[in-house]
């Protein structure tokens, strides 16, 4: 990056450290933090959407729809989420390729044959000749969908509880004023449920942050991947030889996550305060007394 870095063997001390920390691989490492943030930025709203759908389905008056919503909510209860992560990434991939093979392949043989999953080459997603970027992007996309499905179930559970926590009398009053079911939902239930959902959603946000290292298990080149790569001991064959520094790289990741969760905690406390205004909860009462 700098001119002085042209020959790493000739430099030492701070210059060496500066050159080392700005090497191409390190820039990739810093960019991979953006991958994590990108995952959070896409997954959080997607999971919120899935959760909202799930909770609404679970409250439905049509029995099969309500069962579907409830099964979705309960599926993550008894089973470790990491199983879902490992399962969905392969299962989604195979289902997508099987569906594509029905459309583009000449023969429609059952793809799970013996010890392999076989579809014709044209049905591969992405195609074998696609660039490495598309393979990475597809892997990331599968990870996002998987995160959204699993976290959506958790969000659905929180929102389902929050919808039930809105005082019944308020909904009945709205009905007495002649509002339709949709109007009650939109005008009374939706605005009020958030304060009841917030503690649970805040908790989920923290859990979502702490789940991001699992990207590594899903085959995405994330911060854990680079921490292992860069930290591993480098022989003299490398430009910047060093011993096993993985401990320090993981310490850096640890500090990153601690800072991230700590800042989130402060942010959530602020939002809670804001949403508590005028609510019939202990927090709302406290704000009223304080004249806030």
């Amino acid at each position: 990056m700098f001119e002085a870095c042209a020959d790493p063997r000739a430099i030492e001390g701070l210059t060496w450290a500066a050159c080392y920390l700005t090497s191409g691989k390190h820039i990739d490492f810093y960019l991979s933090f953006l991958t994590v943030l990108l995952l959070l930025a896409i997954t959080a709203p997607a999971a919120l959407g899935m959760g909202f759908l799930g909770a609404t389905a679970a409250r439905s008056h049509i029995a099969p729809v309500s069962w579907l919503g409830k099964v979705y909510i309960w599926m993550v209860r008894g089973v470790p989420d990491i199983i879902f992560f490992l399962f969905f990434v392969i299962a989604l991939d195979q289902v997508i390729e099987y569906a594509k093979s029905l459309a583009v392949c000449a023969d429609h043989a059952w793809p799970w044959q013996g010890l392999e999953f076989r579809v014709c080459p044209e049905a591969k997603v992405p195609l074998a000749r696609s660039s490495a970027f598309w393979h990475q992007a597809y892997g990331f996309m599968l990870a996002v969908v998987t995160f959204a499905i699993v976290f959506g179930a958790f969000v659905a559970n929180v929102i389902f509880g929050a919808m039930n926590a809105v005082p019944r009398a308020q909904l009945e009053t709205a009905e007495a004023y002649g509002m339709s079911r949709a109007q009650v939902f939109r005008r009374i239930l939706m605005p009020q449920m958030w304060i009841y959902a917030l503690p649970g959603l805040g908790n989920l946000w923290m859990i979502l942050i702490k789940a991001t290292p699992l990207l590594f298990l899903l085959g995405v080149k994330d911060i854990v991947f680079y921490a292992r790569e860069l930290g591993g001991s480098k022989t003299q064959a490398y430009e910047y030889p060093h011993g096993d520094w993985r401990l320090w790289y993981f310490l850096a990741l640890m500090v990153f996550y601690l800072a991230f969760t700590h800042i989130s905690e402060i942010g959530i406390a602020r939002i809670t305060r804001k949403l508590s205004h005028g609510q019939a909860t202990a927090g709302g009462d406290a704000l009223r007394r304080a004249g806030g």
Partner: protein
Amino acid sequence: MSMTCWETIQAYGLRSIGLGENLLPRSDFTLCQQFTLIGSGMLWNIYFGVLALVAGFFLANSIALAKGARNPLIRKPAEWYVFIFRGSPLFIQFFLAYEALVLLPNEFTLFGVEVGTSWTTRAWAGALLVLFLNTAAYSAEIFHGALKSIPRGDLEAAEAYGLAGWKKFIRIEWPTMLRLAWPAYTNEAIFLFHATTLVFFSGFPAFGQMGDALYYANYFADKTFNPFIPYPIVAFYFILLTLAVTFFYGRVNRHLNRHLPSNTRSRIRLRPQLIR
């Protein structure tokens, strides 16, 4: 040569702890093989979960008390401990612990006795240590919250009866804390068992293909390219385990609430918490 299911169970039922057939099945995978090996792996999940919970319970109690201490020299370290273990991913904690344990000197002399350290990098010791410290932090937070929410009336009543200091704590405060914390603590126990599936997917390698339930499920999924059989099997086992944990903690909960009128007892409500 195909084995009957009973022979498969004899060969692989204890494979996860290194007993029975050494070679894992390589082709013609049967349902029986998958159920047996994955079930065999559950032994590790139960081992990690039970030991971490039992040991973590004691540490959690001390940390919870330390967090409530007035002396900042006691309170601050407890707060930092809980912050570090609750604020960072368990996955990273596993990696970090493994790298740190690898760096330990191979052996050192303690009171003239040579002590080897390589065993600490093995999952049965290293991962157990991390799970123990991790669950202690989460449980300490639960217990600390419960300590703070003991009704003032209970404490005043204890004082009115002349209880003070240690006696008040051990006869009134501690049992009430446990009772209030138990529903949340039940959730913690369930999710600690779920967290045990991370062990062999983080820094800790499995030796001689001895791994937990998810390790074998992953083995089958990799070999057969079919995730639709092994993962549901491991999910099935975990639902059974979750039911067993819920049942056991429910019995304890009943015991803790036995003196209360039935309508004021605290019920266990499962709340989700996934990765830690």
